[in-house]
């Protein structure tokens, strides 16, 4: 959490922030288009601002908009948001050992602020959680810097989108900058054969299962890719063991 002095005064805070900076325009493009989409769906400016400030989850915001317009039952809207967000539960499981040294409330604020991009770049920078208290502080401060710049870019851009919704042309497809940002991150992760295998499995699963409701294809793709990669890894080490 970026508003805690112990984090923002730590040198790792700026490192986490710099790590994220090249991706910030992608985050901003998405925030901008989400802001525009909220107002164009018929939300009031006040509602759009409240949604931006509190919900802070682009994909569940976009999924909820048509349901809100249609006046769907509240539980349907919340269940949709929940399913679209399922991947975050996987992320929090992965991040748990990194943050368990912190008090519950701090862990939960870190979790609330950790979006897809923050999670991916944080785990890219720190492949393993640490046992050492100084290193644990470094990791938490780095995550705080990382989530701060994502939060700030998203908020500023969403507000621009909300207030300029009438003059920003949606047909231009400016939101594609957000997709390109993820393309860059995806390429940066593709550093080993096993990871490329995991990406290929996830992509194929997500495309084949695209018609599942509520974006279940995403969390299914993550699950299938993790399980298959893990099995292949074990199979390979077993074979290597037999050969030796």
């Amino acid at each position, binding site marked *: 959490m970026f508003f805690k002095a112990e984090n923002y005064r730590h040198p790792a805070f700026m490192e986490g922030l710099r790590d994220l900076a090249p991706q910030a325009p992608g985050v901003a493009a998405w925030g901008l288009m989400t802001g525009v989409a909220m107002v164009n769906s018929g939300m009031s400016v*006040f509602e759009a601002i409240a949604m931006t400030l*509190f919900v802070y989850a682009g994909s569940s915001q976009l999924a909820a908009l048509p349901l809100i317009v249609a006046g769907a039952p*509240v539980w349907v809207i919340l269940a949709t948001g929940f399913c679209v*967000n399922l991947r975050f539960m996987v992320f929090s499981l992965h991040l748990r050992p990194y943050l368990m040294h912190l008090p519950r409330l701090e862990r939960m604020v870190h979790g*609330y602020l950790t979006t897809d991009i923050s999670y991916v770049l944080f785990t890219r920078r720190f492949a393993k959680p640490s046992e050492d208290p100084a290193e644990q502080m470094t990791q938490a401060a780095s995550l705080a810097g990382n989530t701060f710049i994502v939060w700030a870019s998203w908020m500023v851009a969403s507000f621009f989108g909300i207030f300029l919704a009438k003059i920003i042309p949606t047909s231009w497809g400016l939101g*594609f900058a957000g*997709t390109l940002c993820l393309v*860059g991150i995806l390429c940066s992760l593709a550093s080993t054969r096993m990871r490329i295998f995991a990406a290929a499995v996830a992509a194929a699963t997500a495309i084949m299962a695209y018609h599942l409701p509520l974006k279940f294809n995403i969390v299914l793709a993550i699950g299938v890719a993790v399980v298959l990669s893990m099995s292949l890894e074990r199979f390979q080490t077993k074979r290597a063991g037999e050969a030796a």
Partner: protein
Amino acid sequence: MSFFEGTDLWTLAVIVGLTGVTILTRSFFFFSSEEWALPDWAQRGLQYAPIAAMAAVVLPEILMQQGEFLHTWMDARWMGAAVGAAVYFWRRNVLLTIVVGMLTFLPLHLLAGW
């Protein structure tokens, strides 16, 4: 457009609920303070979750149009993404990927109408 015009309590309640959903899902495994750890193999497996998540979100965005696999190669999105990826492997810079990818995408999309 006035600030509060069209604001209704039902929508605000939905926003409060969705905020709860964000907190619940993003902090799901941070809530319990019990001492437990995943078995080693599961923790290792999770190393593949970041790249799997990126691929699962991005590839359908690029390779599909209106819920179907692309029927034509004349599509501005996958071309922008392919050029962006090539630029990434050349320069290892995400910002450049975004800029060059957009410079590929926008003319094809706006002028050629792909």
